[in-house]
């Protein structure tokens, strides 16, 4: 199961249901190293959920997420025809279909059945038999990456900053590098100080989160994630909780990051940022990607009526 693709993140057939609320309904996309993907869409359309599925803060209902060709989620049997074929469900359906084949070839029956099983969600983990289970296990064990390890490579910045309230700024930044990357305190603090200087907050090292402004908190939150040397950074509306006069300073840090070649996925309502910094803009609505394009094309030639409608409201 080696994918030749060099995508940094690959999302395949992602569905997420909260009970009967079907939030994501089949999202597939690839994000390459160096891309700055800006995700926009109406509120409640599933942008945060999409982002949180990438690092498994939400567990997808169906679908797979791959990071650097390693599987982050569990195996989704519906994405593997060879797995479906081994299932008891498939085999019993196949037998009965073949009995009344009406001249269809085995291949035709198979294609029809796999489509039907996918569409109607007919598999039941518990009753699909040994062969099915062992192939599932094989695919998983050959490809998976431990979720905590994956998260070390995926930095995340939240709308509400979420700095650790019990720790000073310097400890906020050094905690994960020390405990997870096993850096010595002196190394971790050196790294933290360099990062703090870059955002002009070196003098706040000993302060506590509650003593900082929103803009300062968010810049620290970005730096805290960067201290882990992640391969990709996720931003979930990083400026939405800020007073207007502080939005600029946070966007500035993000722009610099993009300029340095960081791979970024940014959910935001800042269309200026999308235009200026994005390499691709993705429009999510009704739980699917309605449209995606380069910023220039995206904003000058929106194709779907939904997107045109959305843009007319926000621009």
């Amino acid at each position, binding site marked *: 199961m080696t994918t030749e693709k060099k995508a940094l993140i690959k999302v395949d057939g992602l569905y997420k249901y909260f009970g009967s609320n079907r939030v994501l309904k089949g999202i597939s996309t690839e994000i390459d190293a160096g891309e700055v993907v800006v995700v926009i869409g109406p509120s409640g359309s599933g942008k945060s959920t999409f982002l949180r599925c990438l690092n498994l803060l939400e567990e997808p209902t169906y679908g797979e997420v791959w990071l650097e060709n390693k599987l982050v989620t569990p195996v989704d049997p519906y994405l593997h025809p060879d797995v479906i074929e081994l299932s008891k469900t498939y085999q019993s359906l196949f037998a009965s279909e073949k009995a009344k084949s009406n001249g269809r070839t085995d291949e035709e029956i198979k294609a029809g059945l796999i489509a039907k099983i996918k569409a109607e969600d007919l598999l039941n983990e518990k009753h699909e038999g040994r062969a099915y289970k062992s192939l599932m296990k094989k695919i998983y064990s050959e490809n998976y990456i431990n979720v905590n390890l994956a998260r070390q490579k995926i930095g*995340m910045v939240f709308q509400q900053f979420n700095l*650790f*309230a*019990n720790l000073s700024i310097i400890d906020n930044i050094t905690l*994960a590098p020390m*405990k997870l990357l096993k850096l010595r305190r002196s190394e971790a603090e050196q790294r933290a100080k360099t990062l703090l200087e870059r955002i002009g907050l070196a003098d706040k090292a000993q302060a506590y*989160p*509650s003593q900082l402004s929103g803009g300062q908190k968010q810049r620290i939150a970005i730096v805290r994630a960067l201290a*882990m040397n992640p391969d990709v950074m996720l931003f979930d509306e990083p400026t939405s909780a800020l007073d207007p006069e502080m939005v600029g300073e946070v966007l500035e840090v993000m722009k610099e990051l993009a300029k340095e070649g960081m791979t970024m996925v940014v959910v935001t309502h800042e269309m200026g940022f999308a235009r200026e910094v994005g390499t691709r803009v993705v429009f999510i609505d009704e739980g699917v990607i309605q449209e995606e394009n380069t910023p220039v094309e995206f904003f000058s030639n929106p194709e779907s009526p939904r997107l045109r409608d959305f843009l007319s409201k926000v621009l």
Partner: protein
Amino acid sequence: MKDWFADISAQFKLNFIDGNRWQWLVEGFRTTLIIAFFATILGILIGVLIATIRSTYDKTGESLKKRGGIGVKIFGIADRICKLYLTVIRGTPMVVQLLIMYFIIFKSSTRGTLVAIISFGINSGAYVAEIFRGGIMSVDNGQFEAGRSLGFNYIQTMIYIVIPQMFKIVLPTLCNEFIVLLKETSVAGYVGIRDLTKAGDLIRGRTFSAFMPLIAVALIYLVVVIILTKLVGILERRLRRSDH
């Protein structure tokens, strides 16, 4: 008036001075403090453990159940044991638990104070567990998610981020638990432990006068509780003022 005063001082001498009986009270008070203090510590240990198991199960049970495996089963069993413990401890009187501990479970033990510490500690643990669980739930979930998003596993996130914040929230309540225990241990006399209450009662039995020793015992509890409550109040205000 004079007679009354003479009577009082005679009573005082009889109950506290003669035979150095005041020392019984001092000794008893010491025992009460020891039992309450160590039982609180034990209660906190049990409480943290149970609260962690229960809120882990609450938080991750759903996704764990979907994956199946031995870990889920162990957690499920641990969760059920915790619930059973909480039900039994909170559903039976403290005195009965103490009697069972002393006369059945540790019946060959001669170390009454230790048995009392264990007994009150196990009892207190059930209440402290719920205090902690409430504390854990009142820590903003964003703190937890930020920890996980950096790559910390569940336990690390709890230890480095959530539990320190939870302790700050519940510290005043924990101190109150100590105050409650201080009073509750007064039933230790049931199993022959000479705590403060029992000391007063022993003096009463010896001097055949109830008023002085029992009022003295009550006053000691009262003064200590008032002082501790004041201190908790100060602590509470301090914690509220410092945001970190």
